[in-house]
């Protein structure tokens, strides 16, 4: 029983990580029809900005305060980087989807290479509050505390995004834009501002995933963004492209499936996720069309 509880909570933690990346991907695709292969770069930039900042704040104690400040810098860096990508690289290629794919794939490769060039391939460790490394006992299982942080962050992001979409003017514009972008502009609304906002949100969420992944996986590596992006893409496809709620559910399903199968079938977790994707695509072939404006 305790093993099952442990697998469930760690699976939810993994799903939370996927959701942090997938939420931005899904919104960007839903509103703009852009498959953003550079989304993992936002994660990498956020994680390394947090690590770099933390490494320069040695004089500040306690560690929790350093971690918080570094995380905030990481989130800001993710947001700024995402906005610059939208303004400089995506906007000139509006509606030119092939070129967008080429540019975002190129940026993903370039970001990884740049980080490797500056800081090398070695893992980098972000100092975190001691509580993160502890465990909490639930039904006999000792759950690593950082998993609660991952789950809490994902739930908070989901609630904040839902509230933003439901109660703000830009949320209204984004919901309408996902349905029919041309009609939104025909109402006199500059939908490009919504594009930038969605990229900024995606950048913050991915950077948060970058910071938290440094705790979950105990370190930061240049390739982390790319590896998590693959699962995030699987999540947004299973959850239906452009659907935030669908991505949330799919994140949980993928995270849990991976953990359960990895434990009970010794290391077949990744394969189970790919099979799950294949099953969804076979059962629902239109899923790749998604919900886009």
């Amino acid at each position, binding site marked *: 029983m305790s093993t099952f509880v442990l697998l469930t909570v760690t699976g939810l933690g993994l799903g939370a990580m996927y959701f942090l990346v997938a939420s931005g991907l899904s919104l960007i695709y839903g509103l703009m029809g852009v498959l953003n292969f550079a989304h993992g770069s936002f994660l990498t930039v956020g994680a390394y900005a947090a690590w770099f900042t933390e490494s320069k704040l040695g004089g500040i104690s306690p560690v929790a305060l350093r971690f918080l400040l570094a995380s905030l810098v990481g989130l800001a860096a993710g947001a700024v980087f995402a906005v610059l990508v939208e303004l400089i690289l995506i906007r000139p290629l509006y509606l030119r989807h092939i070129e967008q794919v080429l540019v975002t794939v190129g940026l993903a490769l370039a970001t990884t290479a740049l980080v490797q060039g500056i800081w090398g391939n070695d893992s980098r460790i972000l100092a975190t509050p001691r509580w993160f490394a502890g465990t909490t006992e639930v039904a006999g299982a000792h759950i690593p505390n950082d998993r609660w942080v991952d789950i809490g962050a994902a739930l908070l992001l989901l609630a904040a995004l839902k509230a933003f979409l439901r109660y703000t003017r830009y949320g209204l514009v984004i*919901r309408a834009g996902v*349905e029919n972008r041309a*009609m939104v*502009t*025909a*109402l*006199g*609304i*500059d939908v490009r501002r919504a594009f930038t906002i969605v990229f900024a949100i995606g950048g913050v969420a991915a950077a948060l995933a970058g910071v938290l992944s440094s705790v979950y996986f105990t370190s930061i590596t240049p390739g982390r963004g790319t590896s998590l992006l693959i699962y995030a893409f699987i999540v947004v496809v299973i959850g239906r492209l452009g659907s935030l709620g669908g991505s949330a559910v799919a994140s949980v399903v993928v995270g849990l499936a991976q953990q359960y199968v990895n434990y009970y079938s010794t290391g077949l977790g990744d394969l189970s996720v790919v099979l799950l994707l294949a099953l969804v695509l076979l059962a629902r072939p239109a899923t790749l069309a998604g919900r886009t404006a």
Partner: protein
Amino acid sequence: MALLLEVRDLHVRLGGSHVLQGVSFQVEEGGVTALLGRNGVGKTTTLRAILGLVPREGAVSLAGAPIEQEPTHRIVRRGIGYVPEDRDVFAGLTVRENLELAVRDGAPRYELVFGLFPELRERADQRAGTLSGGQQQMLAIARALLNPNRLLLIDEPTKGLAPALVTDVAAALERIAQTETALLVEQNLGVVRRVATSIVVLDQGRVVHTGSGADLDDDALVNRLLGAGHAT
């Protein structure tokens, strides 16, 4: 009357097809100009080209100011309301949210639109996707009327509606025509006769006739321009 909209030598090419081939016409301030023609001659494309919703060449000016280089949202903010052919209401949004989204600057005219379409007030919290076709059409018109407009572009407002609803929409158009300048695309000549003060007829992407609304009383002309069966 003052010149409000001027379209000069407008060309649109879509998917290898030369849809508009040098369309030129003018809309004067006040009244309703009906844009007529057989199916597929480029009426809807003309409205979309005025708004910049399709790539186009040529000149378009509103009240003397060239607008052909401006993005769609800025053209609309100059005071153009648009009722698209397929309504294009946001199905996942409520009636209230559809209207809120349409609010531009200044005070939205909720009393005006709820006066024209009281049903929309009663269904404010209903998702637009669950409305009937007629109700969606009312919402599409209300959305355009919510702001004061210099020009309304209305594309086939009675398309696909039951006869009783056609009468309602025609009555609403008559009321709108008293206060707003409109460029109307409409296949139902009965409706056009009730509201049009001038007409522009397109054929194969070109303007083949311009005249007053009274021209529609000439059955021979109507048959020649729009095909047999249109004259009544």
